[in-house]
């Protein structure tokens, strides 16, 4: 029997000994007890099948073909209590939510037995209306969950299409640098080195420094270059001055040597490091 009883529906099919019928609301409720009869060892499985008291209530309501908005509270409460009672009797652990719902149902039922008071206590929300609201609310998201499950999704209904890669060019992009960043960096380092006060850097014309680099690159290797070839006449007087200053600076920094074999003879220049 145990195999047949994993689902409530299956339990019904086994038609075991009948629980005495109860006349509820005068309706002949023949099929309910069958539905209700669940072998003890299936109860845990049964409860696991529900997502909480609202889900269980919805199930009971649906079994009865009831409309949520028109619940027969006494009947639903009775069925609910039967389940809870059965589960408790078997000492299965029951989530607290189920007990809270049992209390709520009991309250609703007792209220309905009492004559209705015509109090305009607005705070006093009809607990049945509140229950219906929650059931409705829960049901719509239960449905939404089912809908989401139906939406075509990756790895089940479709798969990302990809193709193998050919040999790709290896390229490493260079970071961008803003001139401002460069200046801020320089400012930082100069402040640290306290170079502002020494005037060491400031005095120098950058064009001279640039020309120094240029001359050095011309003097690559162990070769002499004529002094005149360092000058470009097209640059005009200023250019000549810059080159001359650069040459002097290079000599001063002992980066180049100037050689003149005889008086008034050709002057040659060579990088000192190359010697």
């Amino acid at each position, binding site marked *: 029997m145990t195999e047949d009883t994993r689902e409530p529906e299956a339990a019904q099919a086994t038609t075991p000994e009948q629980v005495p019928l109860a006349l509820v609301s005068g309706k002949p409720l023949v099929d309910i007890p069958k539905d209700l009869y669940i072998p003890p060892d299936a109860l845990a499985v049964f409860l696991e099948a529900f997502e909480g008291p609202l889900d269980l209530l919805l199930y009971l309501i649906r079994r009865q073909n009831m409309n949520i908005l028109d619940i027969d509270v006494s009947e639903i409460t009775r069925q609910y209590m039967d389940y809870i009672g059965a589960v408790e009797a078997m000492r299965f652990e029951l989530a607290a939510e189920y007990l809270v719902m049992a209390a709520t149902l009991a309250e609703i039922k007792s209220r309905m037995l009492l004559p209705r008071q015509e109090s305009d206590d607005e705070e006093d929300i*009809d607990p049945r209306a509140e229950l219906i609201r929650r059931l409705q*609310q829960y049901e719509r998201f*239960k449905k939404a*969950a089912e809908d989401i499950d139906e939406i075509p*999704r990756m790895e089940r209904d479709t798969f*990302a299409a990809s*193709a193998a890669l050919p040999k790709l060019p290896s390229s490493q992009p260079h970071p961008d640098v803003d001139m401002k960043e460069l200046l801020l960096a320089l400012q930082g380092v100069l402040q640290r080195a306290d170079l502002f006060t020494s005037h060491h850097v400031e005095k120098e014309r950058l064009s001279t420094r640039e020309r120094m680099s240029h001359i050095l690159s011309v003097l690559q290797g162990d070769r002499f270059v004529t002094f005149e070839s360092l000058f470009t006449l097209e640059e005009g007087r200023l250019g000549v001055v810059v080159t001359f200053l650069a040459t002097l600076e290079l000599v001063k920094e002992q980066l180049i040597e100037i050689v003149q074999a005889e008086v008034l003879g050709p002057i040659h220049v060579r990088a000192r490091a190359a010697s």
Partner: protein
Amino acid sequence: MNEEHLARIQAIAEAALLAAGKPLSLEQLRELFGEDERPARQVMEHVLMMLEQSCEGRGFELRKVASGYRLQVREEFAPWVGRLFEEKPQRYSRALLETLALIAYRQPITRGEIEDIRGVTVSSNIIRTLLEREWVRVVGHRDVPGRPAMYATTRQFLDYFNLTGLDELPPLSEVRDLEEIGREIEQNMQGEIKFDSPDGSGASPDSEAESEAPESDQTLH
């Protein structure tokens, strides 16, 4: 811009989408091209339309999802393609799907609010799974005691479910107004009390009219 040129852009777009294996936005596709050859947005859109058409009758199709465009296997071939993978596609529990549905439709929402609607505690496992799958993320904290995290769905969620936006989710069924329900219940209760409900059918004509039959067509598109 001539046909040949467009065809080339189309082939490059296809190549890139297949190389990526994930959605690429229109901008990402355009940025594959150097500045001097970069197609205008409209051109790119046109090319993608052509690409979509060129996939007709093939094993794959171009789909627009939240993050952009994706080439993917046509659904009709999933039964065959699924055999490639030994593992069955993962099934998700109702608890997880209900939690996901609440986050999707009610975002931003806290765990407590989800629990209120579902009537049960939401296990930390479910939240963790949703976060790990990157289907949901924390978008802030509600300014109430405990400052609970508020969850919302992500682009990845939309991508995974082939949606371009939340507005493509199936519509939620409607809920009746509480006051309206209250009035109705009052009537019904009076009916019940009066007849001690020998047949509760006294109230049924009304309520049947309001029957819960799917209020909104939950058609998928």
